[in-house]
């Protein structure tokens, strides 16, 4: 009798053990069959289809587009440092604007190599630390790898170096030609672009040499897998780097009205700050809707995934994705009321800046609470800026 029981218990244990083993193998290391790049006929809840669309139609082409602009900017920068004059400066500036705008379309992919190598830290931490930059120039050396060095590099540092050194082009050019430290300044500019190029290429080549497959095959929803990391990076980007960075901090909305207009993005160029903000916002909207960068058509993304989960306002039956898109529209309209120079807007029309922050705040709640709870994803990121 007792032996019979032991057998049965053993059988039950084996059954659960089998279930357990099945669960253990689900995850990043399952073999990767070739997947169609435009999976249109798959169920919306298929995370692999969603991740594939995101990787192949949004993230990789966005990186490739950025790289084209970025390489051009590097060429223009080299032309400028080889022969600083009005023509090369103008070219460099234009290429910098184009690249900076495209940066806004990839900053939100804070997942995989970009997260691992903290790409943003080397590209777009502002306001630029101009005193620190001048120290680095004077000493001719200095690390780019520590947090204190982040505001001394990337697009904001370039902004200072090509737009902020003087009130006229001649005055700026003089700093690269006739000034005592001209050679050192040129050397710094070269160091800067080399550093940006090195970090970006590390991320870019990682995506193109294997990470793409890792990304689409890590379909589990736990904190270590793609969907969770993607959502966390996406919400973090909107909250901290669009809402707070571009509006909350300059307008003083987050600090009891203590206005700091000089903390706007592209402070020295000034008239592109709204464009940068709009581009970043639109990139987030398009990514939410799974819009292909190649074709402009919507595919599997957060929108289709949430719809397939049936996420809706239970009292009215409105789809959560419609509610979120409506709020995205409200932000877009608010952005359209602003003038191109956000520095000036903070100085003269700050109410509108604060209103933008408030509209964005509503999006944050929906993304951070309603969207993540419907997806059963935990927000794991922490803010690390001081209070």
């Amino acid at each position: 009798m007792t032996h019979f029981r032991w057998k049965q218990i053993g059988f039950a244990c084996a059954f659960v053990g089998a279930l357990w083993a099945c669960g253990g193998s689900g995850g990043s290391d399952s073999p990767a069959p070739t997947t169609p790049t435009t999976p249109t006929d798959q169920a919306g809840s298929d995370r692999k289809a969603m991740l594939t669309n995101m990787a192949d139609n949004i993230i990789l082409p966005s990186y490739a587009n950025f790289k084209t602009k970025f390489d051009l900017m590097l060429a223009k920068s080299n032309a400028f440092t080889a022969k600083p004059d009005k023509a090369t400066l103008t070219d460099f500036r234009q290429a910098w604007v184009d690249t900076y705008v495209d940066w806004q379309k990839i900053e939100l992919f804070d997942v995989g190599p970009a997260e691992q190598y903290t790409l943003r830290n080397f590209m777009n931490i502002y306001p630029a630390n101009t005193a620190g930059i001048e120290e680095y120039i004077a000493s001719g050396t200095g690390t780019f790898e520590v947090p204190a060095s982040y505001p001394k590099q990337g697009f904001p540092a370039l902004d200072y170096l090509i737009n902020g050194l003087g009130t006229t082009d001649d005055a700026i050019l003089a700093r690269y030609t006739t000034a005592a430290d001209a050679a050192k300044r040129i050397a710094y500019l070269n160091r800067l672009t080399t550093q940006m190029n090195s970090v970006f290429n590390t991320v870019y080549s990682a995506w193109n040499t294997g990470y793409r497959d890792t990304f689409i095959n890590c379909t589990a929803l736990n904190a270590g897998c793609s969907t969770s990391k993607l959502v966390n990076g996406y919400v973090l980007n909107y909250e901290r780097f669009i809402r707070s960075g571009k509006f909350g901090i300059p307008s003083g909305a987050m600090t009891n009205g203590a206005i700091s207009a000089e903390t706007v993005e592209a402070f020295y160029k000034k008239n592109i700050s709204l464009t940068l903000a709009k581009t970043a916002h639109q990139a987030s909207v398009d990514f939410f809707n799974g819009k292909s960068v190649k074709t402009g058509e919507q595919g599997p993304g957060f929108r289709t995934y949430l719809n397939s989960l049936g996420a809706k306002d239970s009292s009215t039956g409105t789809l959560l994705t419609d509610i979120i898109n409506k709020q995205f529209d409200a932000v877009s309209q608010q952005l359209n009321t602003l003038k191109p120079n956000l520095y000036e807007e903070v100085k003269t029309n700050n109410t509108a800046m604060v209103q933008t922050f408030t509209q964005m705040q509503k999006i944050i709640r929906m993304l951070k609470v309603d969207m993540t709870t419907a997806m059963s994803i935990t927000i794991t990121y922490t803010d690390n800026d001081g209070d």
Partner: protein
Amino acid sequence: MLAYFRKTTSAAPLAVFRLLFGLMLFGSIVRFWSKGWIAELYIQPRYFFPFYGFEFVRPLGQYTYLLFAICALSALFVAIGLFYRVAVTSLFLSFTYIELIDKSTYLNHYYFTSMVCLLLIFLPAHAYFSVDAYRQRRLLAGTIPAWCIDSLKLFVALLYVFAGLAKLNSDWLLSALPLRIWLPAHNDLPVVGFLFNYGWTPYVFSWFGCLYDLSIPFLLWYRPTRLWAYAAVVVFHGLTALLFPIGMFPYIMIVTALIFFSANFHLTIVRKISQLLSIPTTFLLAHRTYRFLPVMAKLTVAVLTLFFAVQFMFPLRYLLYPGELFWTEQGYRFSWRVMLMEKAGYAQFTVKDRSGHQTIVNNASFLTPLQEKMMATQPDMLLQYAHILQQHYARRGFQNPEVYVDSYVALNGRLGKPLIDQNTNLANEQESFKNKAWITQFNDKIYGF
């Protein structure tokens, strides 16, 4: 009634339970330690959320490791039955102390473990097959009062029944929430994953889970169904272990349910272990019945009666509060409400004073991600945090700081809405067992328990 208290039964089930439970706890603590959670949860955080009435329980800094070491050692001593009474008391105290440090880490199965340890203090689990009995043969007893084992069974039954009753609500049964949210997250599992894309799957899980909880203690108790019931225990808890990140709980329940098995079953286990360890069989033959001293017997029965009276009533205390339990969470903890809610929230605090200071708080500079997540949806923790902020900013030069919170909470897939009245200065509110009037109305209805 009196006849029942004179009834005796084999001591083997309790001894095996002691052994497995002790080993399980020892393993849990080793696991906890090896994952680095002692530092992460009890040393690194800057602030903690003690339980109301237990504010004297403070983290011990580096000595927290010592506390865990004592706890692990006690568990091991309980398992082998060495210095049993001292060991189990020390296990209860150290384990409970750890669990009382921070609400953020509250789990029902930690509470269950604490309560079982408390019960074990009063039960003669060392009378049979223990080192104590080996060293002091006059302690050795083959039979013990039947109520000693029945009290453990009753406690396990209470847990399951209350857990089942808690599932008798409209969200769980009629909307299959929160499983409808959680299960699709596993639709990429091999073999069974596709099932989680069907709308009816969460209903099957919900109803099965509810019926399981309500019936399993009785099916385990009743001999003809016992074996199948145990198979169900293994499958059910195995599945939950597979699908949800609930740590050791499934294994603890799988082991605990063995208490329902017959004396012969447990004697077989004891014999097998003895063979393995070459323990003389004479040690296994104990005909004496364990006798409490008359005064101890009375005291123990009184303590257990009180224990069960509290255990019967405590999960029902929520009835004394107005409002929706899932929303206010007044009377939610310590009530065997397991996996009933998908609740997520966001809380942005503003601290200001009359002289014009005002700041928006960055929660991350005060709390860990886990603490922030827990705080954002639980009113009593929101209040505790508000007081932490009040004291912090008072030291920073704010005069009588006022603390307001802009909260946003989503429950079981409903759209988020404020949980706390935005105009309440939380610095002025005090924790108590009274109703917290500053929690907003839920404005929806969840029917049932």
